[in-house]
């Protein structure tokens, strides 16, 4: 009886040892396998060398690209007019030098009895300051007479020359468009002009004195 009990004890112990052996065997083989998959020190050194070369190549290329981009930064002042927000900004690079409320085209439409019509819109695009005027004289265009239901005079009629309405300064952008002063200062920040960009006296003076002929003007 006692012999049988000891035999059972022996087989139970043997069974437990077999189970344990299986667990340990699987653990040891997986650990060995993991070590086999891991790169050797030499392989790591080679990897690092390749990665260093790749990083150096990227750094060199990025330096070149930064140089190309920097060459295009002229550091010049430029004028931006946001025709939606009615704001003029004088910028140099990413820096805002001056900003002011301005007036832009009213988006109004008028038509003369002759059928000629006008839509008062500020043009969009890249412009250049083509000229600078002090005490500019306004040469009244035809629409100004049509708007006030007045007969349109001849082109050279001296009645067309009006002083003082454009402020002290004007910057000429081409096709008759200008950045100039206005007597309607309360309307600055709204769409009220016939297409030109108008500014208050103080802001106009700052802009006029900051820019030169050739300065870029971006209207958007």
């Amino acid at each position, binding site marked *: 009886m006692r012999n049988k009990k000891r035999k059972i004890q022996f087989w139970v112990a043997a069974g437990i040892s077999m189970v344990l052996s299986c667990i340990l065997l699987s653990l040891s083989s997986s650990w060995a396998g993991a070590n086999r998959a891991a790169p050797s020190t030499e392989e790591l050194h080679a990897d690092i060398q390749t990665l260093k070369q790749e990083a150096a190549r990227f750094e060199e290329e990025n330096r070149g*690209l930064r140089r190309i981009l920097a060459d295009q930064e002229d550091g010049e002042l430029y004028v931006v007019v946001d025709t939606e927000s009615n704001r003029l900004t004088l910028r140099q690079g990413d820096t805002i030098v001056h900003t002011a409320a301005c007036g832009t085209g009213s988006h109004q439409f008028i038509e003369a009895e002759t059928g000629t019509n006008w839509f008062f819109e500020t043009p969009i695009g890249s412009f250049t300051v083509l000229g600078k005027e002090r005490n500019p004289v306004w040469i009244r265009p035809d629409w100004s007479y049509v708007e006030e239901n007045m007969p349109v005079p001849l082109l050279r009629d001296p009645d067309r020359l009006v002083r003082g309405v454009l402020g002290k300064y004007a910057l000429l952008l081409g096709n008759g468009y200008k950045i100039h002063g206005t007597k309607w200062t309360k309307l600055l920040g709204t769409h009220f002009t016939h297409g030109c960009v108008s500014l208050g006296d103080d802001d106009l003076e700052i802009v006029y004195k900051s820019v030169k002929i050739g300065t870029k003007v971006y209207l958007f």
Partner: protein
Amino acid sequence: MRNAEFVGAKTGMNRIAVYLILLLSFFLLGADKSGPDRGEQAALKAERRSLHARIERLQREQDYLLFQKMMYENDSKYLILDIKKKTGHLKYKNRVLKDFRFQTSKNFPGRSLRPGMLTLTEKIEGKKDRHALVFEKSFVVRWKRSAVPREKANIPSLSLARKDLLSVYFAVEDGALAYVIR
């Protein structure tokens, strides 16, 4: 009799001991690396990881520089959106036309949105200036009262002030590009 039982049990114990020794030797087969070698390997692996991270950073920088170079040569306006600073710039070539700030919606994928280029796929013209700009399936640029169609309501959004949105909306055209940085 008792002696025989004792001998039998002893033999059994011996067998177990042999098994355990054999197993231990199997286990130790895998532990063929010495301590200092493992330390060097760990250091090399750390260096390799940091190099991978550096290359990824340089690649991202190059992607942005190439985008800028392309846009400097291009004739269309584009947006630069800094998600981390919540600021944006409307640009034309190398000129900044407008700076603006924005808020991100609660469902905005702050971390998962990868830096890079996106295309303006749709301009939604809403009533009473409630316009919106859709950039692929990534996000919508809008102001808080923009009329965004129901099917696009769940797309994350960047909210701008009304005036800023109108300026940007009318400045960019379909197909315009935006670059997301963080």
